[in-house]
């Protein structure tokens, strides 16, 4: 028996919904009779997109007047639940998505399942979670009355339009949220970015601790540029402050599934592997022949990144 209703948090981004939101809408419509999307801000204009990806209704929390979305959006969803809760609410793993999930969980007194990479209907909703670097998969379910809250990682499903009619847009205001909603955005800063986005790039070139020092990351950026790819990083060098968090690939960073992933000076901690092991091809360059990264690499070069990368840059330049 199919699930009756799934709600999906559809995050607005640059005139559409985020890719992960569209992935969740697509998967939700294969599981449930009715799919409902919830959005805010510019998302209220996107009834056609929500419908195209499978939502019958688009609830619009409206303009948040600069407030961080977590509190007002969770308050609006809680109010909607009072007139009929879904089987579950699917939320993208993102900065704001996690805020909404945490707030809603405490408001509804319902648990959250996070880091989900698969959802199926086995006489009830069953979630899949990779653990221990993806070597094991834990399957879990919600118990007790009330909706489940599921936070899903990017690229767990493929987004495909259904060609359906636009969704009906219905206003769903947050109501009074008191002191909890008093965190407001004063200014937004956009960091200059060249080349493709990390999550969407065909080629990802990542650097790790093996680079030795922050300045050596320039080689990663150069190889990425020459291959028209994006530059990524392991948690170790993000924590060390060499590159911004937005470059981080792994459990606590971004999930990437490029055509080819070049891991340079990355040993392959489980935390990193889970973010990139879905890549079509993996190339690893590392001094340590026993580094775990070689266990999943299609091509492994046991060597010093300070020798191999300059030679690779020269070879790629010679071709262009």
């Amino acid at each position: 028996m199919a699930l009756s209703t799934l709600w999906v948090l559809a995050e607005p981004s640059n005139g559409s919904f985020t890719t992960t939101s569209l992935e969740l809408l697509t998967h939700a419509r294969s599981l449930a009779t009715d799919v409902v999307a919830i959005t805010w801000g510019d998302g209220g204009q996107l009834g056609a997109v929500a419908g195209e990806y499978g939502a019958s209704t688009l609830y619009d929390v409206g303009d948040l007047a600069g407030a961080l979305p977590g509190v007002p959006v969770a308050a609006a969803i809680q109010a909607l639940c009072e007139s009929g809760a879904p089987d579950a609410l699917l939320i993208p793993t993102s900065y704001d998505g996690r805020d909404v999930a945490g707030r809603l969980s405490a408001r509804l007194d319902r648990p959250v399942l996070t880091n989900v990479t698969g959802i199926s209907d086995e006489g009830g909703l069953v979630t899949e979670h990779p653990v221990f670097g993806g070597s094991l998969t834990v399957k879990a379910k919600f118990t007790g009355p009330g909706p489940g809250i599921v936070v899903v990682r990017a690229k767990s499903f493929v987004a495909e339009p259904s060609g359906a009619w636009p969704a009906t847009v219905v206003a769903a205001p947050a109501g009074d949220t008191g002191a909890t909603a008093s965190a407001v955005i004063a200014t937004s800063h956009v960091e200059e970015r060249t080349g493709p986005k990390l999550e969407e790039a065909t080629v990802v070139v990542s650097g790790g601790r093996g680079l030795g020092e922050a300045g050596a990351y320039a080689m990663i950026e150069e190889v990425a540029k020459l291959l028209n790819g994006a530059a990524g990083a392991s948690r170790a060098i993000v924590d060390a402050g060499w590159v911004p968090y937005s470059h981080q690939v792994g459990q606590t960073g971004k999930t990437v599934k490029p055509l080819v992933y070049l891991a340079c000076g990355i040993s392959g901690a489980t935390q990193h592997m889970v973010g990139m092991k879905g890549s079509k091809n993996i190339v690893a360059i590392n001094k340590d022949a026993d580094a775990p990264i070689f266990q999943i690499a299609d091509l492994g070069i046991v060597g010093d990144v300070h020798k191999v990368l300059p030679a690779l840059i020269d070879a790629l330049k010679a071709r262009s």
Partner: protein
Amino acid sequence: MNIVVCVKQIPDPAAPQSFDASNNLNRAGKLILDEADTYGVEMALQLVDKAGGGEVTVVSMGSGADVAGLRNALAMGATKAVIVSDESLRGSDALSTAKVLAAVIARQPFDLVLAATESSDGYTGTTPVQLAELLGLPSITFAKAVSIEGTTLKVSRQTEAGYDEVTAPLPALVTVTAGVVEPRYASFKGIMAAKSKPLEVLSVSDLGLDGQVGAVGAREAIVAVETAETRQAGEKYVDEGDGAQKVVAFLEAIKVL
């Protein structure tokens, strides 16, 4: 300025992880302070210092008797520590954890609660925001810089495109990313001083939360644990000056070049 820092004692992340018979993470070995929490402790110490005084209280929960991680935070300079330690907390989910921490934190006045964005063992990443909701506080997650001006909190919050400058009135809760500050190492003097600093151990009963938290309070269950599909290792070469050429040939073969 009184700041509460939520910390977690976890199994050494460098050691292999496993499940116990109840599919809980095996915590039988020695527990250490999660490195992700050292940033919050350092941030708290710096903010209290800038404010001209106050207390840094570390709070934690666990199912065992370990306190070495808390002593580590005290050695860094925290004023005191409180841990809710109770066998009945085994199997707690994130919401139960938040309920326990909220009950502890609400016992005394505070200006700010700090936590890591997520722990390095469970990676759930929802406990701090659940805690903020239970305490009725505004929250700012993914902080890469934190300052306080009067009673206003200013945070640079990581976003997909860059960062936002976000403000909130105190009291509030902030989760900090790794690298927000450089955590200090505990000095010998600090380690010695930590031995005599207050470390309070509470039970679930002390907080009046019997039957509401731990495995009893969790409304989720593990259906199965399965071995995931593994990738096969491909070809491995020792670089003899031809490593770059091997990479180029591979990229040609998959038509990236």
